[in-house]
């Protein structure tokens, strides 16, 4: 399986490391509400179909990527950078 890193180009999946679910929202650093942190740390949906995940290109540029992956077919449809660089990614063809 190949993933198209917006910086390095198309590379083998083994260069990347799965980091976690990209749909959960991390509470603000000053948030002291236990419930919000509990949900961020422990609660995960298990969707069938398209899902957003964070991957890191650990064996190359080390950027953190937002990857749209189908949990049924495993097809990765798009890869984007995260943070201020968001929106520079492409479809994963």
């Amino acid at each position: 399986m190949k993933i198209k890193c917006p910086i390095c180009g198309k590379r083998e999946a083994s260069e990347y490391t799965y980091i976690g679910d990209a749909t959960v929202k991390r509470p603000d650093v000053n948030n002291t509400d236990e419930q919000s942190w509990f949900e961020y740390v422990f609660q995960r949906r298990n969707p069938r179909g398209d899902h957003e995940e964070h991957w890191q290109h650990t064996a190359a540029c080390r950027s953190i990527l937002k990857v749209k992956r189908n949990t049924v077919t495993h097809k990765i449809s798009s890869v984007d950078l995260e943070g201020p660089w968001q929106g520079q990614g492409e479809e994963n063809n």
Partner: protein
Amino acid sequence: MSGYRLKDSGIYIDTAQELRFEFDGKKYVGYQGDTLASALLANGVTLFARSFKYHRPRGVYTAGPEEPNALVSLRTGDRHEPNCHATTVELYDGLVARSQNAWPSLNTDFMAVNQFFAPLLIAGFYYKTFMGTGQKFWHFCEHFIRRAAGMGQGGLSADPDKYEKTNHFTDVFIIGGGPAGLLAADTLAKIGAKITLVEESNNWGGSLSEEEGLINGEPALYWANNVVKILTKNEKVTVLPRTTVYGYFDDNTLGAIERVSDHKQMPKNNEPRQRHHKIFAKRVIIATGSVERPIVFEGNDIPGVMLANSALRYAKRYGVAVGNKVVVFTNNDDGYHSAIELKKMGVNIIAMVDPRSTLDPELKTQIEEQNIEHHPGCMVTSAKGGKSLNHVNIAHFSRDSGSSGSLQRINADVLLIAGGYTPTINLCSQIGTKADFVEEIQSFVPGESTQPFVACGAAKGQLDLESTLCGAVEAAVQTAKYLNLDIDTHPSIKVEKANRKAIPFPLTDIPSTNSSAKKFIDLQHDVTVNDLKIAHREGFSSVEHLKRYTTMGMAADQGKTSNMNALALIAKERGISIPEAGTTSFRVPSKPVALGALAGRDVGNHYHALRRTPVHEWHIKNGAEMVDTGGWHRPRVYKKAGESLFEAYSREAKAVRNNVGIVDVTSLGKIDVQGPDAAEFLDRVYANSFQKLPVGKAKYGIMLRDDGYIFDDGTVWRLGETQFLMTTTTVNAARVLSELERLLSLYWPELKVHVSSQSDQWAGMAVAGPKSRSVLESIITDMSFSEEDCPVMSVRKGRIGKWPVMVARLSFSGERAYEILTPRNYGLDVWEAIMDAGKPFGITPYGTESMGALRIEKGHIGGPEMDGRTTLGDVGMERLSSKKGSYIGSVLKNRHGLKSDDRKTMVGLISDGIKPLRPGSVVLKNNEIVGHVTSATFSPILDKNIALALVRKGKKHIGENLQVVFPLKDEAYNVRVVDPCFYDAEGKQLYA
């Protein structure tokens, strides 16, 4: 059955080259080109193996990789390999094979008594027998059951052979070197596509060896050989024989094993035994062909019963007749083709049994010409014999169990079965492609593709030569369009006089008059028709349940010959159609794969990259015993002549406490943190605060996870207003860096901070002990070591000759100590300079073992205490955490359960025993478990065995006497619970 060599030599063998080989200690002779099975058949061998469960005698059933019975163990010694298909093992001079699953011998197998217990050993036997009886009874029986049931045994010694891995990036990957695969490859090669073509065997043409038809006016196999010649010369085409595709994965990635030297006694000239190919293909063409399907009747597993097309293969390919008196049982016209061709080649076919009452007149004339007795409208009700077939019983065809019509007995040594063909769709199924049922051939073919592949030929249900070749052209045209290549959509390919298509008369299970008769569906796993019926009766009727309850199709052959019959049978039992009953999905690997081939060269020292410090060679030269920690090679202990490990590390630890020692700490993770917001960032990352840390000072830092448990610890050195150097534990270096990058990029992009790993840029060493200052003062210039200029926790810069060093007064051992960093390339020079300077002071190099002893004596936490289940409170560090700030884990560390006063907390243990305690031992109070030992050592300074332990309400036990037990070694000691800091609790030694 007693096979023999025919007058006409087979097309695959070279009778000029004799090969000597051995099976079960007996010596035989075969020819170059033979398989082990063909050579044994030619030598009259009928008995090949004992079956999995009942230990019934079994012969050879097929001529290919679908073989369920004839599994043998190959080679001896280190190269011993169990469960090889005799039908695909290529013969070589000196081959040694043994039968398996029989004791004391294949001929006299005492385990065959299992047959008489057969009524007990039915589907669900284990569940029924052992559920409810309790674990003990199962454990008592397990040993005997595992011995009795099974395949060959694996070896215990290391594999002496080499394996390789390689990658292919190709436009088209074609699986199968039969007519469909070859024509597709030829068509696409002509228009310039980049192709990789693989074939499982070492011969090309597949089923064409039995084909009478002509392709473009030439004999079919002649055409095939020409195509292979052309393809081999084309540099855009990679042709791989002896290569089995075992897995079809996501994104059109495939795995294949090339058997580079399995056909030789051992690999020659450093060649690998096998090569793993990983294929990245734009498009895949699956031309994996089909396997002949058995018909199920009483005694269908007796040696001598086999598939008709396989018998024809033995004759055509290897010039081997499978027996002297042969009966053919067929439900389709292809069976006649096999019979007539065999008869023409001199095999004594005596009778044909066919449940259909009418026959094509042309075929009828042919069998009359060949003098073959014909029984239309009849069926074989049973095969009889012991270790070989004796006779078959036939009757008029009927689907009722009270079988009608008169019985007739035909004496025979071989019974050939032709039940139609099952397309090989395993690979398509692996990627989730659904299967479509085709009524005409009574079998499943690949449905709509879930990835860019196309199936053609027999794998697609195109069972005659003409439709196979048309299918191949169609697949090639589709592929060319997909790749945007121009193609002639109607290449000229003419087929004449082809074999007939096998259109089977639906027939799977022949009713038997004898209700206890064994009719095998899955020969490899010994699953019978009765097992399936029982499973259905007990409610396990869905194919997925049925498979798991009976283990049908779960043997190493994945039910290649058995699945279709099982599906047909269960559909019949449930009164539904076969497509309604559905299929099970196939899994990777479709054929067993040697672990060595998956590992490739990543074995032994090459298992993962081993990191060495710049001082490595010095350590080795000075007697260091090395140990792997977190991917690094570190000195464990430096042994002097005659010293034991224990003596050596005791000496080293004492030297640090009383004098001075030096340890290589290059492996610690080092992360450079820079930016205007670096201090704020560190405050958020660590549980303790760094805002106020002055430049030129270092501080201990402890990091939590979001869930509130301890993650890692280390020190942070403030090198400038906006520059910090962070150290981590050796093991967590990569994980900490990744986590910092994630936080900065995803959640705190507003922080102006950059992090980068410097673990490999610095060499590090710690000089510890009362005389450490004296040693360093004598050699490091450009800095002062006085108590005012270099107090505890300060970071200073100096030089040793021309080499710059950074010195931090940090202590892990509790003694006065300095950590020294220098650019990696100067590491060895600096180390040697310090050793020279320390000589007058008796400086002692020490390893991880004594470093551990020193830190346990001080009660400092290490990896075993940070196992992901401990909180700051558990290890007595709550007071370090910043009270006001928000940092990772600051909210969830206050969860109810993490604040409970019932938690295990860290204490020290002093043992009265002579032997060291073991980490992982259980701490008992009044025979109740209250905790466990995390780290243990002999303490040279106390002259006692001590340990750190996590004990429930630990502090309350201080002063008590408890027990530490390690049941696996039958060890038990009395221990006294103490404060975890065993030595110098006031910290006076830091200033000694």
